[in-house]
């Protein structure tokens, strides 16, 4: 066991990361707990919000994909003439034989009535007297292309007067709406990341100012700028990693609570959680790393700027 651990510690990969994070070394710049704690809390909250924004974006992406693929994988044919049952059946057969069509069936009168009811046409017995349209529901292969045009051509060639509706009117709107949703989620994520980086940079600058005496001593003793920058960066990378982990855990707990609320039959607000898959939680694993990298960059820039002021 001891041999196993000593092997890990001697591993160059481990040594690189322990150096990067300043583990196993006495910090040359003092750590200020009073300053670090509030910053850890702020970054944790930002990270939790970031995780939730990213998961919301994932839900938005998946919902939009589901809606658009549902719309794109089906079309409807309105048979205007001839309308008799035998010809409708023939039109269904022609449709079934067209390339790219997975399934085709004529819509029953009962289903057509249901559809009309959904659009507010609940007019009781009068509905039976209405001339309902003759519709063929068509399921398409996911890779099908130009099937609508082909169907129009095939059915017209066989003497049918038809109108093929490929739902593009609706799918266009949905694609636009989902693009807006995705954009909003990504913007929220970006805004949170910028806020986190800015607050870390601010804290790093403040830390360097309060420790300017120590920085100056290191500088005068002959420490290269990169050495001092590494000292500052290692500390804030550690802080970012820890705060990121807290944030990710917080976000996971919130998602679990939202899921429980949804299972208890509560609000629409939590309904998105059912669109999440277990593998979407890679976002929570990556969040601390992103937080650590952002912290490292922010601290690096702040330290470099501060050192430039010294001779």
């Amino acid at each position, binding site marked *: 066991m001891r041999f196993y651990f000593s092997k890990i510690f001697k591993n160059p990969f481990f040594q690189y990361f322990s150096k990067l994070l300043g583990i196993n070394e006495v910090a040359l710049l003092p750590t200020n707990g009073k300053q670090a704690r509030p910053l850890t809390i702020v970054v944790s909250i930002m990270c939790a919000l970031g995780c939730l924004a990213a998961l919301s974006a994932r839900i938005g992406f998946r919902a939009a994909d589901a809606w658009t693929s549902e719309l794109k994988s089906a079309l409807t044919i309105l048979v205007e003439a001839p309308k008799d049952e035998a010809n409708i059946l023939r039109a269904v057969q022609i449709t079934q034989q067209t390339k790219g069509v997975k399934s085709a069936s004529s819509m029953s009168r009962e289903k057509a009535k249901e559809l009309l009811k959904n659009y507010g046409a609940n007019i009781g017995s009068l509905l039976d007297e209405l001339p309902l349209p003759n519709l063929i529901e068509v399921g398409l292969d996911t890779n099908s292309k130009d099937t609508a045009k082909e169907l129009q051509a095939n059915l017209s060639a066989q003497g049918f007067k038809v109108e093929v509706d490929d739902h593009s009117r609706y799918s266009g709107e949905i694609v636009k709406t989902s693009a807006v949703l995705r954009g909003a989620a990504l913007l929220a994520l970006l805004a949170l990341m910028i806020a986190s980086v800015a607050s870390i940079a601010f804290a790093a600058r403040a830390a360097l100012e309060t420790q300017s005496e120590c920085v100056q001593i290191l500088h005068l*003793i002959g420490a290269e700028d990169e050495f001092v920058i590494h000292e500052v960066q290692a500390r804030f990378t550690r802080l970012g990693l820890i705060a990121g982990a807290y944030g990710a855990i917080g976000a996971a707990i919130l998602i679990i609570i939202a899921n429980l609320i949804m299972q208890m039959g509560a609000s629409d607000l939590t309904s998105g959680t059912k669109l999440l898959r277990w593998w979407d939680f890679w976002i929570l694993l990556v969040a601390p790393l992103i937080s650590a990298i952002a912290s490292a960059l922010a601290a690096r820039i702040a330290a470099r700027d501060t050192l430039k002021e010294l001779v």
Partner: protein
Amino acid sequence: MNIKNQQSPQDKKNPNKPWVKFENVCLTYNQNQRKDNGQRTLALDNVNLSLKRGGVYYLTGPSGAGKSSLLKLMYLALRPTSGKVELFGRDIDNLSRNELPELRREIGVVFQDFRLLPHLNLFDNLAVPFRTRGQEPHEYENDVIDLLGWIGLSHKVNQLPETLSGGEQQRVAIARAVICKPRLLIADEPTGNVDPQMGDLLIDLIMKLNQYRGSTIVIATHDHEMVKRAGRPVLAIEAGKLTQYETPPTHLRFFGRDKT
């Protein structure tokens, strides 16, 4: 502690070249650095000096005369407003920012206010110069322990500076300055906080560095008895103007607190 060290090839090449050379150096503090009713303050006025390799120099003068400014220029905490500063034969104006740390490592500084890192114990404080050079603990721990023994603080190796007396902190500050055997040692009032016996011990340590390593030593002090006793060259400064004497002058009007 083995304080002996080999001379660098560059040192052997130019044995007579001054280690520290100031030519017409002026230093002015602008408003950002020092606020004096919005006026610019002339801290050093046309200073010329030349310090030989291996020389020991005492810098003296009244408070506010420009001693600290002169020392800061020597240990590269400031750049002159005008004039030329050369250290170890290199003009500092021609050095890039990346080259300065290397030069600073050749300079040991004993600050008047010690400037030890307050969160580090004595061992770690003495290890700082080695760590800034990228050395690993196994390369320096013997040197640190030896030197701690030499200054009589082995038993306090794990203590923080705040737990030490002023004199003990002074000893640690000197130890930190000499531990990497610098080519130039600048000490600002190095015996100001210690009893005469410890003062002699510390001066002895500094002189050993001078004797074996050939380091140039600059000691700023108000203690004119020490200056007279040493019989070494004196840099006397008053109102930013410097006068260099090869032996301590007989008149004492430059000697800080003890203006008689």
